[in-house]
């Protein structure tokens, strides 16, 4: 009997030991999910002794791995380590990086730097913004650039740092998010096809639908979009509203003003989007397709236009296509021929969590990311352009000709760049703005909802946000 009791006791202790093992395990795990960082364990021990010894530092960074791949990040980390002796960068890079770092942030173990979008599906950056969980980084942009040739702020593309993309809080011009890449988004089409058939890029909505009738005779649909992800239609919606109602209309929407969405101008635009489907210009089956499916259909010539950004060329590099397919981008049509064509700018972001352990080094890293070598490396490895003024020219030798041309959309007459970002939501707000604005599109396209009902449902969400804001300010 005694023996058995002892055995049971041993078994119990073993289980408990296993459990306690678990709890200490995750804190060490902080950065190993990423690439082959063998220096990881060495880095951790340096953390404890690193105080006071400026040369021996480590930087933990978390990077969202999207359409641009991981080659650039591996390269830039290596460059940074070369230029900063004694610094070890531990990188976590993954398409689901937010799910990896969220529990770490909750446990008070935040990374020093994040390359993650405020518009990403996971909502992590938006949550951090609501919780005031990001560090202010205005000083980075008011300081010298990496080459020490001037102030960094002046190198960045105009209009970005002041926009709510980077300064998300009302009444606070502080910068909390640093702009990463930039690129126009619009209507992607096959240039070869247009040249062959002698079709012209439609400038107005009337021309757009007229072209729709022409291409129908050719057995093609005019338009398709990323079906189950109606959020892609932001590339049509916001520019169209800006062209029709000016930037005031956009700014009113961004601050959730009453009547900003249910008014004549916006309704006119919503109606055009509804018309694409109800008048038979949308590729059949679009609502049931995902992004790759609809993009493939478009490249096979089933539809003439699709909304997308410059990344589509690399994203669809392996996809079958019509012979001679050449990527090109047109701006969104306007109501009058002389209206300004706004082009929605895509802009991903970097940020530093408020709980970062090594914010100074993280700021240095951000400065380094805007250096010419980093910008060139990004063009070379990812085929895309940084949000710096010299970006497009620095990238010229590295990106494909059609990508370079797509970036030139702003050079055309009467186009303007549009940066669109909603104001940060009040804490405790339960609305997801982009869901509220874009999810009804599927219902509108299916004819189950009218443009008016769409506008009303968005207004209702805005009203809820305004009342949450009042409650939060109390």
């Amino acid at each position, binding site marked *: 009997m005694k023996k058995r009791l002892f055995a049971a006791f041993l078994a119990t202790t073993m289980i408990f030991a296993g459990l306690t093992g678990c709890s200490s395990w995750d804190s060490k795990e902080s950065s190993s999910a990423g690439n082959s960082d063998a220096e990881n364990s060495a880095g951790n021990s340096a953390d404890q002794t690193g105080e006071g010894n400026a040369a021996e530092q480590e930087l933990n960074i978390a990077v969202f791995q999207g359409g641009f791949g991981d080659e650039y990040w591996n390269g830039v980390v290596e460059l940074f380590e070369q230029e900063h002796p004694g610094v070890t960068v531990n990188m976590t890079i993954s398409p689901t990086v937010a799910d990896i770092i969220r529990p770490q942030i909750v446990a008070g173990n935040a990374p020093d730097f994040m390359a993650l979008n405020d518009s990403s599906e996971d909502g992590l950056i938006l*949550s951090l913004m609501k919780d005031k*969980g990001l560090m202010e980084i205005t000083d980075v942009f008011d300081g010298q650039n990496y080459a020490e040739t001037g102030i960094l702020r002046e190198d960045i593309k105009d209009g970005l740092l002041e926009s709510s993309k980077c300064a998300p809080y009302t009444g606070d011009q502080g910068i909390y998010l640093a702009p990463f890449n930039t690129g126009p988004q619009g209507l992607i089409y096959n240039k070869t096809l247009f040249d062959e058939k002698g079709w012209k890029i439609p400038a107005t909505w009337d021309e757009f639908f007229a072209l729709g009738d022409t291409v129908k005779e050719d057995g093609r649909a005019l338009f398709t979009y990323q079906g189950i992800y109606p959020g892609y239609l932001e590339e049509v919606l916001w520019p169209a509203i800006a062209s029709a109602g000016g930037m005031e209309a956009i700014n009113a929407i961004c601050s959730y003003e009453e009547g900003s969405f249910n008014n004549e101008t916006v309704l006119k635009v919503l109606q055009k989007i509804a018309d694409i489907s109800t008048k038979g210009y949308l590729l059949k*089956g679009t*609502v*049931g*397709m995902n992004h790759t499916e609809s993009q493939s259909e478009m490249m096979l010539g089933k539809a003439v236009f699709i909304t997308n950004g410059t990344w589509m060329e690399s994203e669809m590099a392996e996809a079958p296509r019509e012979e001679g397919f050449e990527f090109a981008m047109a701006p969104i049509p306007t109501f009058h021929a002389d209206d300004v064509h706004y082009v929605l700018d895509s802009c991903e972001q970097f940020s530093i969590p408020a709980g970062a352990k090594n914010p100074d080094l993280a700021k240095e890293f951000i400065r380094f990311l805007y250096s010419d070598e980093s910008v060139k490396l990004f063009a070379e490895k990812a085929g895309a352009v940084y949000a710096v003024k010299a970006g497009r020219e620095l990238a010229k030798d590295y990106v494909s000709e059609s990508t370079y041309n797509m970036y030139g959309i702003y050079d055309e007459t009467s186009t303007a760049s549009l940066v669109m970002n909603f104001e940060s939501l009040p804490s*405790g707000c339960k609305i997801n703005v982009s869901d509220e604005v874009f999810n009804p599109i599927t219902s509108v396209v299916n004819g189950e909802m009218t443009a008016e009902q769409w506008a009303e449902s968005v207004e209702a969400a805005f009203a809820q946000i305004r009342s949450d804001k009042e409650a939060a300010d109390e």
Partner: protein
Amino acid sequence: MAKKPKLFIAVCTLPVIFLTLVFMIFPMFNAIYLSFTDSTALNVGTASRFIGLDNYKYMFQDKSFFQSLQNTIKLMAVVPVLTLFFSLIFAFVLTQSKLREKAFYRTIFFFPSIISLTIVGIVWSSVFNPNKGILNHLLELLNLENLQHAWLGESKTALWCVAAALIWQAAGYYMVMYIASIDGISKEVYEAADVDGARGIQKFFFITIPLLRNVIGITYVLSLSGTINLSFTLSNVMTAGGPNGASSVLLQYMYTQGMRNANFGYAMAIAMFTLAAAVVLSLLSRRLTDRTD
């Protein structure tokens, strides 16, 4: 050795009690507490404020919540009944008929239950794909083009596509349970029925179903809770709750609020509601099916 080894039993159950406390009881009470706070995903337990019933009040005005509640109720009304119906038929046919390839069918029908649910979702997404999917192609072959739909993209069909996948993956699982119980029914009963000239359908309705009554009751409750849980994964994979929330379900809305919108407190309130609803429903259905004589 009449004396019970009390101490030994106590020591043996300790780890289990400990594990249950740490991983079940404590999180549950924590969730109940959090549902009365404005906790976000990032400040859990630190900076959250106690806000009483505010989350619950908001919940009963939230149209997205009601939409997902409605969808969940629709699924719970349809999926368990159909699943168990198919399971029973399959089980009956496989046990009573003299098919030679019985074992083969049994494997085939059970197969979906051992596939990961995410994969089930992906497979069915491709079945329902508007252009490449087998369903629309079949309809085209049968000259039924007017029945073609963008199945997962239309609000009238999306939820039922999820339901179809749910039924497909669960039917084989309950079939195995029924086969076991039918095997437990004495052969003589069926033989006596044969002598009396009963046909297959009569045997099914007058022998199999009455004798399986208890098992059916249990599987019904299991299937109800399975529907609540599994619909989340399938709808997430197949439609992401779309189009326009037409296929979102309660647990999915909870996830969206908790993880995407960072309203942990609110998400816990939704979870509590779901829990309460599930408990009430299973008690109810147990009472209804338990009333044997």
